[in-house]
């Protein structure tokens, strides 16, 4: 019986499954508030706090930046424990789905996938980075993470003015775009009340403009620069959901690399490591759906089978793709 | 008492060995192959049986090997000469220790076989299409020097000076080369020794491909030639095991295999 379920899952149409799950989680995180759903304020995904009453939970980056901005006195005193417990909740939430939070739950990611679907309908080919660009742009998310941690601390210790509060949120496209889905346009403004506010909100709007063009031509454009994915990667080793590869079965056909939204080369080239999760990976599992080798790529949750590459599944998906669009 | 026969139909000579179920050799026979493989082999077999006054049907199991193995309808089974040679060498070389590598120079080919302790062939190499450096080459040399095949060894041994470097061991050109050397006034001993050394060098190079660690065993007709054995040992740098009757090792192996096949049949029957 277990095998029949397993073969059913392995040959499922991942594209359709992922579309519906993303939609469901999008509604949960962006409109959950109306149904009094509150998953707390330490979610490892972009359920944006600025989406006033619709949000189903708060993206952890917002409270993190608030707490870090409290100033060294209280931050390193007993009150600092609150920051640690907040981080602990974030880690527990994260351990459950590892980086699949980005691939399935993140509303901003889902928006980008919808924009990609639009581009696909219009038949415009997607863009991709050259290897040099990839290597250089890869570092941006770590820089953003460092800034996101040290600027609030700077605010707390008086180096920066309070107008710099939650610096990353000011330039994050999530702040401006996700509230639009609950009719709140207030974030699309430039705040002239102070020079800092003016600069930060201008940056925010610039990034929003870039976000639309970027995600129209490059799949998952923003996820490549997102500090949350950098933060995720540091905790991804002990997470429960693991992406595994059996190098002996790999024929290095490079299919996983060609379908990968994030253009990760290691997944196709690395035949030695078992745990091949990379920092850019969003665990959308498209690589597993595109792998023609039996049991080469698999994702399991605490050792239990979740999804595994199979020949029949692969052939079925390719036939379906060939007939559909 | 059951009897088992191993018939090795080689390119130049047919070798037959008869053993009983205690695996010691009752009698063996070597006759030239001639043109009709099958007829000569059968006649030789009957002649040998007659000498030890046995009837054909008293033979429990007969295995044929060698080039003509498929033509001998009377045999119960046919086995490639490489496998037979391996078993034969292990059997014949038993008192010298565990054999690792077998070098067999036959009439038309040179074989190097590597076996493990149970006699299973783990690796082997054969000369490609060309018959250079084989028994045929020695026959032609003897004929050109107008001496007997068996005397080659003595000529080699009573050589005083250094052997003559002979570069080609090609059977076709052997004649013209030897006549040329004789014309230059070189002695027969020099030529024979030179030929032995070039054959040895060529055979050892072939054997290197299967590995030459451990005990090396040398059989086949040319193994009777003392001179060739000496040059082989010199080239190899260590002693080589030579059986008392090197020509019949493969046939012996075939007869032992016949005995084992007979035992298998008894068990499964």
């Amino acid at each position: 019986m277990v095998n029949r379920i397993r073969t059913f899952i392995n040959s499922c149409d991942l594209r359709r499954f992922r579309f519906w799950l993303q939609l469901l989680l999008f509604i949960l995180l962006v409109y959950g508030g109306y149904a009094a759903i509150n998953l707390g304020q330490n979610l490892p995904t972009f359920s944006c706090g600025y989406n006033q009453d619709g949000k189903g939970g708060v993206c952890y980056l917002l409270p993190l930046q608030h707490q870090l901005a409290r100033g060294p006195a209280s931050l390193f005193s007993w009150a600092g424990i609150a920051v640690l417990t907040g981080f602990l909740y974030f880690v527990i939430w994260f351990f459950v789905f590892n980086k699949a939070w980005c691939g399935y739950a993140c509303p901003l990611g889902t928006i980008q996938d919808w924009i990609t679907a639009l581009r696909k309908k219009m038949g415009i080919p997607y863009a991709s980075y050259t290897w040099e660009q990839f290597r250089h742009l890869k570092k941006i998310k770590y820089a953003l993470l460092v800034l996101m941690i040290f600027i609030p601390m700077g605010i707390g210790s008086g180096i920066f003015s309070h107008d710099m509060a939650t610096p990353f949120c000011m330039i994050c496209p999530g702040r401006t775009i996700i509230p639009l889905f609950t009719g709140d346009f207030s974030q699309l403004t430039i705040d002239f009340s102070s020079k800092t506010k003016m600069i930060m909100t201008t940056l925010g709007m610039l990034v929003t403009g870039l976000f639309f063009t970027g995600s129209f031509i490059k799949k998952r454009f923003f996820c490549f620069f997102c500090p949350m994915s950098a933060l995720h990667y540091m905790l991804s080793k002990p997470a429960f959901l693991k992406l595994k590869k059996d190098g002996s079965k790999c024929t290095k056909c490079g299919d996983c690399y060609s379908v990968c939204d994030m253009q990760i080369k290691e997944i196709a080239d690395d035949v030695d490591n078992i745990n091949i999760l990379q920092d850019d990976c969003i665990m959308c599992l498209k690589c597993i759906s595109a792998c023609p080798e039996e049991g080469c790529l698999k994702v399991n949750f605490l050792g239990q089978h979740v999804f595994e590459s199979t020949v029949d599944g692969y052939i079925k998906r390719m036939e379906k793709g060939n007939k559909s669009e | 008492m059951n009897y088992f026969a191993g018939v090795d139909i080689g390119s130049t000579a047919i070798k037959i060995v008869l053993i009983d179920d205690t695996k010691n050799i009752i009698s063996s026979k070597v006759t030239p192959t001639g043109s009709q493989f099958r007829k000569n082999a059968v006649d030789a077999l009957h002649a040998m049986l007659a000498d030890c006054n046995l009837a054909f049907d008293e033979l429990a199991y007969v295995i044929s090997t060698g080039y003509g193995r498929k033509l001998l309808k009377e045999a119960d089974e046919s086995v490639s000469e490489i496998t037979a040679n391996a078993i034969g060498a292990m059997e014949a070389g038993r008192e010298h220790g565990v054999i690792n590598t077998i070098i067999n120079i036959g009439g038309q080919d040179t074989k190097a076989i590597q076996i493990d302790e149970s006699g299973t062939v783990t690796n082997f190499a054969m000369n490609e299409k060309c018959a250079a450096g084989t028994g045929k080459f020695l026959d032609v040399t003897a004929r050109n020097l107008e001496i007997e095949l068996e005397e080659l060894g003595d000529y080699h041994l009573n050589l005083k000076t250094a052997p003559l470097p002979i570069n080609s061991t090609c059977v076709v050109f052997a004649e013209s080369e030897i006549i040329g050397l004789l014309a230059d006034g070189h002695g027969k001993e020099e030529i024979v020794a030179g030929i032995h050394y070039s054959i040895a060098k060529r055979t050892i190079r072939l054997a290197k491909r299967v590995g030459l660690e451990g005990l090396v065993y040398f059989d086949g007709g040319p193994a009777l030639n003392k001179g060739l054995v000496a040059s082989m040992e010199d080239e190899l740098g260590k002693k080589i095991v030579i059986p008392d009757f090197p020509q019949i090792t493969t046939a012996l192996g075939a007869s032992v295999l016949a005995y084992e096949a007979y035992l298998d049949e008894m068990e499964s029957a």
Partner: protein
Amino acid sequence: MNRLLMVTSSGWKKEIKVSNDPKTDEKKTAFNLTHQAIEAESMLRRIKDDFPDNPESMNYFYDLYQQVYCEGRSVYDKEKIVGTMCVQVPEELIYAAGGVPVRLCSGFYTDDQHGAEFMPAKSCSLVKATLGMLSNKSTLPFINKVKTVVSPTTCDQKRKAGAIIEEMGYDVYNMELPPLKESEEARLYWQRSIHKFSVSLKEITGNKITKDSLKKAIGKTAAAQKAYRKLHNLRKETPPVLLGKDVFMITNAYFFDKIENWTAAVNKLNEELEQRKEEKFSAAQRRAPRILFTGSPAIFPNLKLPVLIEESGGVIVADENCSSNRMLYDMITVDEWNMSNMVDGIADNYLKPCTCPIFTNNDDRKRKLINMSQEFAVDGVVYQTFSGCQVYSMEQSSITKVLRDEGIPVLLVESDYSPDDMGQLSTRVEAFIESLKAKKRRK
């Protein structure tokens, strides 16, 4: 009309009617009287009759060879035939452009001798045979219809052969293949040459590749590869359900047969093999050693070595050469079904997983061989190299070392199309099979 009795080396007789009707202008003998036909017929007979229980659905393939190789009646009549020199030429693009790809690698010893005049003595017999076939007047009928030959400049001898073919009057399209395949540059380089090829296909076949025609083409080859992949998995069974020589016949038929008929025939065969699997029917003797055949491709009628292996008691359960596994194994993956992604998907499919020894490092091939020997429970590997085939013989040492470390014995065979080393080969193959049997008995 007088009659002529012909006897071949393996003791096979054939009555020949010598037609001297005036119609054929320069006295061209009908194809079925040429040496190629005789050679093909004798090999086909040997494959059909020397083995007791061939699967019933193999008759489609035997009749196909009888029709095309022995009687010279082509499968295609009006279609635009595009000759391809190697597995690296993307068939989907040719189908999409309205053409029909036919693989020109030939296995005829007669063509090999004809080709000898163009090539040095010690060179690859396959390339010599291809040259002989293309230059020979009385060659396979559909070969005369070939006007364009696509050569992906893979190994040196095929690349130079392209130039010789051009002198024969065919127009040759050379595709540029990178000598390394791991780097990103190599991938883009190959994608660019595939783009150039798909554009210039318009001149070759006369019609442009459109999105729908490409999608249909990919669907066609995907169906064929799906059938092959099923056959591939069925061969993992113990006891073996099918002999290796039959699989070579099937995959060699893919060279020239219509793809739809070929796929239907393979699917029918799969059902029969599925049935055999249930009955635990064994196509080979009880303790037949399971052999993996790799190295230079075995192409009909030069199935000398595979047939010899199976005649002396082995069974070829898997093969890793470009006339069969490497040609049909890897399927095309497309993420977004628009033109650019499909063409790039095709390019990647032909370059990235390819284990051809022309690429500089061959660790993919090592891993694939080790993985296959585990999956197919292989007892021994037969590594065939054509004398003069420099890429395969260069890899012999590294591949043998890797396989020996895994405890898998390897038989290295260097031969060519001529039948004169049959004696020596049969001894070596028999000895190898016996050593595997002994090892298997002891295990």
